[in-house]
């Protein structure tokens, strides 16, 4: 017969909310989003996913902060391959700033491996910056991947503080942003497809008119031939403009930082 449940639950998630993250509204100034955040597009479009959650760790703040540095390895971290501190300093106001480098396995579903074969071979490098403030009993962390970022960028911000309802517990507020430059590529494909379709409609209509006129006994006048030439030129211009816009969208969607893979 089953015995106890093992570890008593030390973490309770109070609530979580996830949503599509729209256009420039969520994107912070600085980093990838600077210009986009300032420029307002004609309509917001979903740029990624945003999730926020609030939870409680059943331990006092100092124990939680100490545990933070001793997290790896644990039975649930088999996907974490290496852990290193690459920067650390104590500030004048007694805060600990640290940067931790993690490498993790890059597990993708089979369909993703087929689509992105170049990414399969590379582990994911992740940086976790943190500020521990023992005077205020808070810790803030920011974690993000520094490769594979064009394919998918995940950023997470956590704030740990003493649980206001129970001072022997610690509250964790977690926010995550998941985005992909593939959104920009699909928008570019749509824009191009629409522009090319429109120019084909012009050609199709003009062609129809031409043949009809001929059937109705009108000689294909110079005017008609010129109109056909004009239509072709206009169609070329529209397609060119669409290609430029599409290239522009696609390159804006790609990140500006130096990226791996």
């Amino acid at each position, binding site marked *: 017969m089953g015995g106890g449940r093992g570890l008593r639950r030390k973490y309770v998630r109070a609530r979580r909310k996830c949503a599509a993250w729209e256009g420039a509204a969520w994107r912070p*100034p600085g*980093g990838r989003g600077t210009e986009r955040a300032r420029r307002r597009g004609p309509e917001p479009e979903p740029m990624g996913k945003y999730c926020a959650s609030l939870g409680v760790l059943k331990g006092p703040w100092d124990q939680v902060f100490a545990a933070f540095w001793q997290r790896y390895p644990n039975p649930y971290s088999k996907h974490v391959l290496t*852990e290193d*501190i*690459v920067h650390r300093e104590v500030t004048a106001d007694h805060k600990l700033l640290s940067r931790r480098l993690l*490498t993790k396995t890059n597990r993708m579903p089979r369909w993703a491996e087929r689509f992105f074969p170049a990414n399969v071979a590379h582990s994911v490098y992740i940086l976790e910056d943190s*500020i521990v403030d023992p005077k205020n009993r808070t810790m*803030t962390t920011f974690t993000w991947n520094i490769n594979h970022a064009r394919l998918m960028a995940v950023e997470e911000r956590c704030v740990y*503080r003493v649980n206001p309802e129970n001072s022997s517990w610690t509250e964790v507020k977690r926010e995550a942003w998941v985005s992909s430059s593939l959104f920009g590529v699909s928008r570019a494909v749509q824009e191009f497809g629409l522009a090319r379709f429109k120019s084909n409609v012009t050609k199709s209509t003009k062609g129809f008119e031409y043949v009809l006129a001929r059937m109705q006994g009108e000689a294909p006048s110079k005017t008609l031939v010129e109109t056909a030439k004009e239509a072709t030129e206009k169609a070329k211009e529209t397609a060119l403009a669409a290609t430029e816009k599409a290239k522009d969208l696609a390159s804006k969607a790609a990140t500006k930082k130096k990226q791996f893979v």
Partner: protein
Amino acid sequence: MNSVGEACTELKREYDQCFNRWFAEKFLKGESDGDPCGQLFKRYQLCVQKAIKEKDIPIEGLEFMGPSKGKAEDSS
């Protein structure tokens, strides 16, 4: 836990042990005297920064908490 530089794992462990003790017994209690782990940290960093360069891991030039600038911050 392994270091990204295979040769650095032992140095990392020594440093981690020192750090964890200092962190819980001194730093969290507000005591900022001394840097008992300074030497160990230097040795560990020499090793790991070299490994990072060799593996071409792109950690250079990234602002601390960089991409998060502008995200609403709780006052600390």
